[in-house]
């Protein structure tokens, strides 16, 4: 009877290996951001044009919030996709992280301005408020101010967001 105990190490090993095997097949490396399904947070920001208080002011219409920066190389590279998105008619909100109005305006003049509204975050607080991991990141927000999708890192094509477009 006692010798049954000797099988315990084997049983535990098999349980652990089986579990690792299952985990190994079911792990998703790309997880949805916890922000999806939450309301767009409110935090003090200065709108450059109209003195809005923040993206939450846009409640009532669907929009795309893009957080980037004039000094960030990958953000510059994805600018063309933003221009394409602007063509579809969905309002784009540009949030410039750790940036200055001079740099932002000269950047937008140099390239083009696809944004409906531009906010500038001089203090560098927006990343944390938005739960962003990477710069740039793109947030798609619905009519009720609920975040529908978060794309971390540069856009690869406009198709990534096409299912959310009107």
């Amino acid at each position: 009877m006692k010798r049954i105990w000797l099988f315990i190490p084997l049983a535990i090993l098999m349980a652990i290996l089986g579990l690792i095997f299952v985990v190994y097949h079911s792990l998703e490396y790309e997880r949805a951001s916890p922000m999806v399904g939450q309301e767009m947070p409110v935090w003090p920001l200065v709108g450059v044009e109209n003195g809005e208080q923040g993206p939450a002011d846009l409640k009532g219409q669907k929009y795309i919030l893009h957080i980037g920066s004039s000094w960030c190389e990958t953000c510059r590279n994805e600018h063309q996709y933003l221009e394409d998105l602007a063509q579809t008619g969905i309002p784009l909100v540009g949030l410039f992280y750790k940036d200055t109005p001079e740099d932002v305006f000269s950047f937008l003049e140099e390239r083009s301005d696809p944004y409906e509204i531009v906010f500038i975050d001089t203090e560098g607080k927006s990343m944390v408020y938005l739960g962003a991991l990477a710069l740039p990141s793109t947030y798609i927000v619905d009519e009720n101010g609920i975040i529908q999708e978060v794309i971390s890192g540069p856009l690869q094509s406009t198709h990534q967001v096409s299912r959310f477009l009107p």
Partner: protein
Amino acid sequence: MRVWLFIFILFAALPVQADTTARLKSLYSQIRCPVCDGQSVEDSEATLAQDLRRMVYGMAEEGRSDNEIKSFLVQRYGEKILLKPQFRWENAPLWGFPILVLLFITGILARVRHRSRRSL
């Protein structure tokens, strides 16, 4: 067992750290830098880690409690941002396991001792 009691008392008697620097340091070390590999924001110089430190600092200055600060971050980055999972029922297996292990080895020791007594 007395040893364990001693250690328990030791930990229970730890003075509550009122010092702000100590509080911040302890908070930083409990928050994972989401873009680094397993390091806390205290141990990382990544931009996001710096932002998180600043945010925690700002919230602490405003007089928010540790729990408020943590849940603010959990809401945005998920439970994963905390290096020390909270004491909640969902995390019972995690925190309960060490206790089970200790009970288990205590059981074995009791048996060993019993046999040793009997042989005398």
